[in-house]
């Protein structure tokens, strides 16, 4: 599928910068008439993924950066977010919906990304997330 838009950028380890990239990506979707529901899900997934990269991956260290690559086609968007941290193991993240964890304030970001995106996966090291969303397709999870 031909790309409508494609870009990649290194951003400083700062959530305000991350939000500008988030806005750029969602604006691309809106300009190409993606449904509001898809835009909502992708915006939320980007927010969670970028905050995770900055806060947990790069541990808020100001000298680190985050790489964001985005490809938009007519019916699919793919975003790759890579931080310069040590990575993590997805299997070690506790399930926030377990009764024992339900009242704990953290740990919901990854669950929201998985739910709102159709494709989701980390590299082996755990510092690069690839996530994708197909136009108008709700996740079965």
């Amino acid at each position, binding site marked *: 599928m031909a790309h409508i838009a494609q870009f990649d950028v290194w951003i400083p380890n700062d*959530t*305000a910068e991350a*939000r500008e990239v988030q806005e750029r990506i969602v604006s691309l979707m809106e300009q190409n008439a993606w449904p509001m*529901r898809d835009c*909502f899900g992708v*915006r*939320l997934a980007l*927010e*969670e993924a970028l*905050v995770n990269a900055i806060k947990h991956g790069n541990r808020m260290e100001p000298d680190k950066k985050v790489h964001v690559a985005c490809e938009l086609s007519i019916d699919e968007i793919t975003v790759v977010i890579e931080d310069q941290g040590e990575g993590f193991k997805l299997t070690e993240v506790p399930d*926030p*919906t377990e009764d024992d964890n*339900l*009242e*704990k*304030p*953290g*740990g*919901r*970001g990854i*669950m*929201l990304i998985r*739910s709102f995106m159709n494709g989701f996966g980390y590299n082996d090291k755990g510092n690069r997330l690839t996530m994708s969303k197909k136009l108008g397709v709700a996740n079965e999870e």
Partner: protein
Amino acid sequence: MSTGTRRLELEEVGDVTVAKFTDKKILDEGNIQIIGNQLFALIEEDGRQKIVLDFSNVEYLSSAALGKLITMDKKVKAAKGKLRLCAIRPDIYEVFAITKLNKLFDMKDTLEAALAGL
């Protein structure tokens, strides 16, 4: 009370405090911290016991905001108070449902329903 821009509009309805979020997006950690401080002050400084959080302006919120709401719920319970959430649009409700927080929070469709019998 924290310094900074007010992120909540407060209204007293009988013995219930209605706190309406003024932001469309509750994403930024700094804003969430301010909102949290204003919410916690209702319980810890003002001694309010019945609180309704009105989400009618809110179009986006992140998991960081959910975390703050969970802490708020704990503080209300510790003070033997009551907390209800209302006027949450479907997209946002889905965020609560996915994370199963709709089981933790008392959520009503409208402000009127939230005020009834609190």
